[in-house]
């Protein structure tokens, strides 16, 4: 294993130390492992709290700041945070208007956030949870843990975050967050496995000419393994999966997300194919992101996330945001 780390056990703390040093706009509680806005809670504003395993950077700590999250709690690598962290994040960011928990749909995330939410409610904090489950590679049935939350998390955080800045009430912020999730779909592809520091070797073996289709963001294998083909064909598989689930049309927000080890050069090649696919379906990518946003350590691969825009979403997407990972308008 080749990694720029000091020790396997110190990975998350050392990275948080770096985040604290790099971003004066953030306050990092190293003991509880929570990333806050340095400005503290603003009375009357609904706070957005998210979190999950580490290894997905810039998600979530990189999305703390004006127009997005109020706090993020990073767990160990690929391990959801513990309730204590979430409680600290929730209480430390509550400005009296309540707190929205943005939870990716994984058993671990759901259980830990639920426990935290109950304990916060006991202490009088108004908490509403929104589940993100956009990954069309997983069937949402009795026979699975349900669809995973992946790229749409960023869309939910940005759009609901913008609404929260207007001092909208918790119920409204939660409604928009749920709507964004409902209108979003993702599909991911891996060219290589990633290496969890504590595991010391790649999570799975993937021969030189094979790829994994329908991966999540924890470096786990996907639904099926297939041969490596042209970017155009791989994109078609991903986009077909999305389009079969929620037909693409009208104005779309689309993200071509790198899994951490894929050069931007290749992500743009993927974006060109995504744009061509959308044009073929009569959909228009009026807003987009291309880059590393919701990663899986050093995995090579990409995911595509689409969101069927409404006028409300578009205005909120365009609203100013100032975080380490996403910034415009200020």
């Amino acid at each position, binding site marked *: 294993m080749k990694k720029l780390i000091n020790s396997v056990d110190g990975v998350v703390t050392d990275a948080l130390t770096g985040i604290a040093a790099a971003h004066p706009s953030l306050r990092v509680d190293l003991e509880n492992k929570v990333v806050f806005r340095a400005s503290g809670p603003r009375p009357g504003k609904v706070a957005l709290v998210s979190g999950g395993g580490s290894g997905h950077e810039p998600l979530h700590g990189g999305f703390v700041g004006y127009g997005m999250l109020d706090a993020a709690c990073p767990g*160990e690598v690929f391990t*959801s945070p*513990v309730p204590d962290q979430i409680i600290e994040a929730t209480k430390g960011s509550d400005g009296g208007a309540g707190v929205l928990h943005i939870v990716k749909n*994984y058993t671990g995330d759901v*259980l*830990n956030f639920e426990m935290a939410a109950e304990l916060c409610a006991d202490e009088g904090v108004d908490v509403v949870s929104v589940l993100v489950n956009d990954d069309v590679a997983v069937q949402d049935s009795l026979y*699975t843990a349900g669809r995973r939350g992946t790229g749409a998390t960023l869309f939910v955080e940005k759009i609901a975050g913008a609404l929260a800045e207007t001092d909208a009430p918790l119920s409204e912020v939660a409604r928009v967050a749920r709507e964004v999730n409902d209108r979003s779909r993702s599909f991911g592809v891996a060219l290589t496995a990633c290496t969890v520091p504590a*595991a010391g070797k790649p*999570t*799975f073996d993937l021969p030189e000419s094979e790829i994994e289709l329908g991966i999540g963001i924890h470096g786990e294998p996907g639904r099926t393994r297939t041969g490596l083909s042209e970017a155009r064909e791989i994109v078609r598989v991903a986009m077909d999966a999305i389009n079969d689930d929620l037909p693409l049309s009208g104005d779309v927000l689309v993200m071509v997300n790198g899994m951490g080890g894929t050069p931007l050069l290749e992500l743009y090649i993927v974006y060109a194919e995504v744009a061509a696919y959308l044009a073929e379906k009569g959909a228009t990518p009026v807003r987009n992101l291309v880059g590393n946003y919701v990663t899986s350590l050093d995995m090579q691969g990409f995911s595509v996330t689409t969101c069927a825009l409404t006028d409300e979403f578009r205005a909120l997407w365009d609203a100013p945001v100032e975080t380490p990972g996403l910034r415009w308008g200020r």
Partner: protein
Amino acid sequence: MDTSFFVAWMEEIATAVQAQRDHLTQLDAAIGDADHGSNLDRGFGEVRRALADSPPETPGAVLRLAGATLIRKVGGASGPLYGTAFRQMGRSLGDVSDISLAELSTALDAALAGVQKLGAAVEGDKTMVDALAPAVRALAKAVQDGVKAEDALSAVAAAAQEGAKATIPLQARKGRASYLGSRSAGHEDPGAASTALVLSALRTAGFRTW
């Protein structure tokens, strides 16, 4: 079974999990995200520390502290699930200072109920429940049959181990492995494997303290 027995149990778990850490992580790599070994190793290491820092006075208190510590330190799916299991056991034992086999049986049943209430998994879903449930039945039967403690705990360990192995052919319907669909078959469930370790440690703790 007194407080020192339950402390010994926790120590035996910590030792076994540390020794099997990489094995558990590799099981999780095959059908999950390669963190189960480090999750539990971190968790039971913290349990050991917590017990040393403020030694509880009753068996129930030992298990409640262990459960709370796991919830506070592990994260992931296994943290809340294992944490709940131990907390429910601890609650079931109350503040009694010497635990009978029958009381242990009731407590293990409470652990299973807690895990199932939280995670909604049934036997056959390829989770820790597949190791825990047969162990609960084995202990209940041992109590009913009036066998002696050593043999009862051996039966518990054997049942859990068998249950864990029996997850191999199954397709997962809960947890991260369920995302793999039919590809999850052919691999042992990491949580079932660790549950077998945890319950085998019960037997080892018996050897050590009796």
